[in-house]
């Protein structure tokens, strides 16, 4: 997936599943959109669907540091690159 495709998927997901429309990609999700820990876990489930593979516990813990949409996309980028390299 390209970066643009990742961003588009995440933005669509946020709109459809989290009712966050036209989001600011660098805004703090919690402060601006009341995105809480339950939403974060739910988002990771969708990320697993996007990458079509489970995340490891370590990866999930790493993801708990994410605060913005761009950071989500960076995370997915990083995971996919890591997985591709290990093949």
């Amino acid at each position, binding site marked *: 997936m390209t970066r643009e495709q990742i961003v588009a998927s995440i933005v669509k997901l946020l709109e459809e599943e989290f*009712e966050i429309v036209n989001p600011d990609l660098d805004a703090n999700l919690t402060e601006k959109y009341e995105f809480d820990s*339950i939403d974060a876990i*739910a988002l990771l489930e969708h990320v*697993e669907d996007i990458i079509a*593979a489970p995340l490891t516990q370590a990866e999930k813990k790493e993801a708990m540091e994410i605060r913005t949409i761009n950071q989500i996309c960076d995370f997915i980028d990083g995971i996919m690159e890591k997985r591709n390299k290990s093949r």
Partner: protein
Amino acid sequence: MERRVVITAESAITPIGHGKKDIINNLINGVSGVKNLKNEDNVLSKYLHSNVFGVIDYDIAYEFPRKFTKTLGPVSFYACQVAKEVIEQAGLTQEQLSSGRIGVAYGSTHGSPSVQRNIYEAFFDPTRKGYTKINATDYLKSMVHTTAVNITRMFGITGRVISSCTACTTASQSIGYGYESIKFGMQDAMICGAADEYDTTTIAVFDNLLACSTAYNDRPHLTPRPFDVKRDGLVVGEGAGALLLEELEHAKKRNATILAEVIGFSCCNNGGDLILPNAEGVKSTIKTGLDTARINPVDVDFISAHATATKVGDIVEAQAINAEYGKGPLVTGLKSYIGHTMSSCGVLEVIFTLYMMHDNIIVPTLNLDEVDPRCDIINHTRALQESEINIASIHNFAFGGVNTSLFIKKWK
């Protein structure tokens, strides 16, 4: 000075309507909310002998933002809706709700069974989707206390939480323990009630015990038939109800409309069989309830019987009522209109009684065409009548031998 407890708001979602107008109209006109099972699951329904259910088959316009709906299973949608209506009806402010002096006593039979199935699907097939998948919110939506804490979350309530889970006595315990919390000074108000969602596994439990009605699958409106000679068992139903109980001076101070007073509550256990009803246990519960209300049996005008229409249960209850009350108060089996809505039956029966109390009527037991001689030892309501209810008692009994009686008094 002794604290008195009054009811200052109510809300009900039932198989015969949502809100007083529809409900009282259907009670007066003898309309049943019992229909055939509303959706066919491909697993359990084909094994059930009972094909009837007290169904909520109308839309409810929920207006909850996603930040709250993400932790709501179907049972909590019901619970939060009735809680919302009670809060709005009472005109409680956010400051009051978050003061720590208002609490919630609310429960359900087992949380949300439909959501629990998601968890069990992962349990039995962890390889689905290629990896284990239990959703983040599945537990929150399905846990046994999901109704109570979704109410506290949605409305910012910070008082005590009681989440009773005793099947058919859940709501009556919620009301009773809420009453005690206020009476003994721990809280000034409590949102009390219970809810249960549509669920065929509940039917399966009773079906397996040969306790469900099966003879009227082709004529659902003719069942259940409490106290009737042709009764053949209970009908499971879904529903939700909530009451706002409030300390009297607290209610007066904010000019609240007072609907009735809760004057007594008892909860006793049979101390024995977990399924079979026990007349001595019920009698003891009635006696204890009358003592807490500080009234005599002759003071009670009306009894909402638990009356699930099982062969044995109705007889045992009739015997206990006869022993304590004789043929004094009128007795109606309100489950005849909506089925046995499980955890919510107690609060719905209180609310129906409140409606009758205000309108000075008593509705009959539906489908009571011929009273079983073994039950014909109490004063059954056989037809709609104009009658003042000054003091009413609401009975509920549950698996596990839990018995409750609530006493409410007309506010004048």
